[in-house]
């Protein structure tokens, strides 16, 4: 349970999986992003893109002093300017998350796990 909000009508809890799937969907629409990768892909040597059910392995959400932070692990296409792709990703993910959940996200940390050339 990551987001806890209380309203006059009761409490709202949003799960980590929900945030991961929203952030994951948003990240995939960013130009230059080929897919999400598992956080442990380097250690486990699993070299594959995550499927929809597994987005949770590539997106982590945590709460730091009343503000939320998201870590996103991605694979980027070969031959694009990675800095720009990432800054667009951060903008887009923040925008979509804030629009969807109505709470401010302070940071979107992006980890480029791999670069792929797709023929």
């Amino acid at each position, binding site marked *: 349970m990551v987001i806890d909000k209380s309203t006059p009508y009761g409490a709202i809890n949003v799960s980590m999986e929900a945030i991961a799937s929203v952030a994951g969907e948003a990240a*995939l*629409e*960013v*130009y*230059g*992003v*080929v*897919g999400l990768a598992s956080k442990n892909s380097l250690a486990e040597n699993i070299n594959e*893109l995550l499927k929809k059910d597994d987005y949770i392995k590539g997106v982590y959400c945590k709460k730091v002093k009343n503000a939320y932070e998201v870590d996103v692990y991605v694979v980027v*296409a070969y*031959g*694009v*300017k990675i800095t*720009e*792709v990432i800054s*667009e990703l951060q*903008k*887009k993910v923040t*925008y979509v998350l804030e629009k969807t959940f109505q709470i401010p996200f302070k940071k979107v940390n992006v980890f480029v796990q791999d670069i792929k050339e*797709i023929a």
Partner: protein
Amino acid sequence: MKSINGQQLKQLFLSGANNLYNHYPEIDQLNVFPVPDGDTGMNMNLTLTSGAKEIQNKNDESCSSIAGAFSKGLLMGARGNSGVITSQIFRGIAEGMKDKDSVNARELSDAFVRGKEVAYKAVMRPVEGTILTVIRESSSALADQIKRDTSIEEALAILLKEAKISLEHTPDLLPILKQVGVVDSGGAGLCVVLEGMLKAAQGKFVERNENAPEESVSSIFGNTGSYAGAKLSEDEEGYGYCTQFILRLGKPEDGKKPFIEKKFQNFLATHGKSLVLVRDEDIVKVHVHTLNPGSMLNYAQNYGEFLTITIENMSEEHNNISHGDVATDMVANINRGKEEENQEPLKDFGLVAVSSGAGLDEMFKELGVDVLISGGQTMNPSTEDFLKAIKKCHAKNVFILPNNSNIVMAASQACDVLENSDTAARVIPSKTIPQGLVSCMQFSPDGSSQDVYEAMKGALKSVVSGSVTYAIKDTDIEGVHITKDYYMAMKDDKGIVSCVKDKFQALYDLVDDLVGDSSSLLTIIMGQDIAEKDGEKITADLQKKYPSLDLDVRSGGQPVYSFLVGLE
């Protein structure tokens, strides 16, 4: 032309980049997707300019090397989403022209198709209704229509025509575009580039029009609200030096001070106007208009070393004659400042308010405001304007009424700057004119600064306010359909109440929505477009409808808003 060589191709690319430069502010206006930050045109322009630089001095005769260099320049200079996509399109085009010294129309078409393929490869889930759609539809239409004897000009003309058709359809594919009533900004940028290329092929090379975008530059920076500090506005005092520099921050070992962004920003904001400060790790890029570039550079050098510096004299550019006047003005200002300082001891309290329109100015003055700053929704005063006004108050405690949520920030910044000086300035965060007026009424110079502040701030909560203004385009917001030139009734905190053709009807809708059980006094401030005798009619109508309310209808003379409504 049946075919083109490298040099001709270079002309096409340069002309495309120039055409984009000449039109990028218009493209910024369209920007709503994926994040409405109004910088698509700017980003694409910077990307293309970087590509153009790469080939500017290249004299190769082969298309392959020109296209390759252009694509490399685009890749390196890519900015923003559409910039990255553009760089991929041209990377594909360069691949398509590989090993070719000259290309004919068929080969050009194949290159564009290749551009589309490469552009689509780099994204897992392409969003349709964007620049991607435009390049896909136009390149495949060109491939279908091309014949053996098609010339380069004809090919580009087909491409542009199809791209424009595709662009027109982007709102059908992407709902957000339709909602706001625009076409895709990235796609529009691509069309502008293609148009520039076509013109060059027809022998009408597009030159870079240095003056055109400069005028609209304010709108670009104005939209990106995240730059705190002074925003570029219709700057009356457009003199001084346009100073831009890139600073690489140093380490303490090199004898440099640690960089504190806020402090740095405050210093620059107080010494200049139109401040834009962007920081990326250890690089800081600054753009500022100042009368004294030297002191600014000295200050900045305390924190690191410069990578580039550009200083331009804007007085020379703008107005050769006023040069002398500037100097005398400044001297006059300084002298005036000194005189005021010497004249009398500091008052206990001073009030500064932001307003627009003669009638409103008058009302604030009646309520005891010392200094008025002209500003509002469309023209936000800068931090410096506030500093000047606070000084002019000549008081120990100054309260600022920004009367607009966009201005609160600049006002707070002025207060931060004044910390530790003789004057204690505080912002009463009034977000609307009616709030400001009510807050002023609570002002009484007896008691401690804290008491006065609490009283004035407390008054803000007792008012609900709204306004009536006209719509500038057709759109849908929060389920209300907006029609251009109709009048919208807006609640200041909760969005749009209604949108109707008649401004008086809009006013009545608004009042209807605002009035609650505990309401007692209704204040209506009429804008410059409302005649005095309409006021009498409004009073009569509303009095009949709400007999228990006290009515106060006045002429405020403000622009943009036909009515400002406050209810206590």
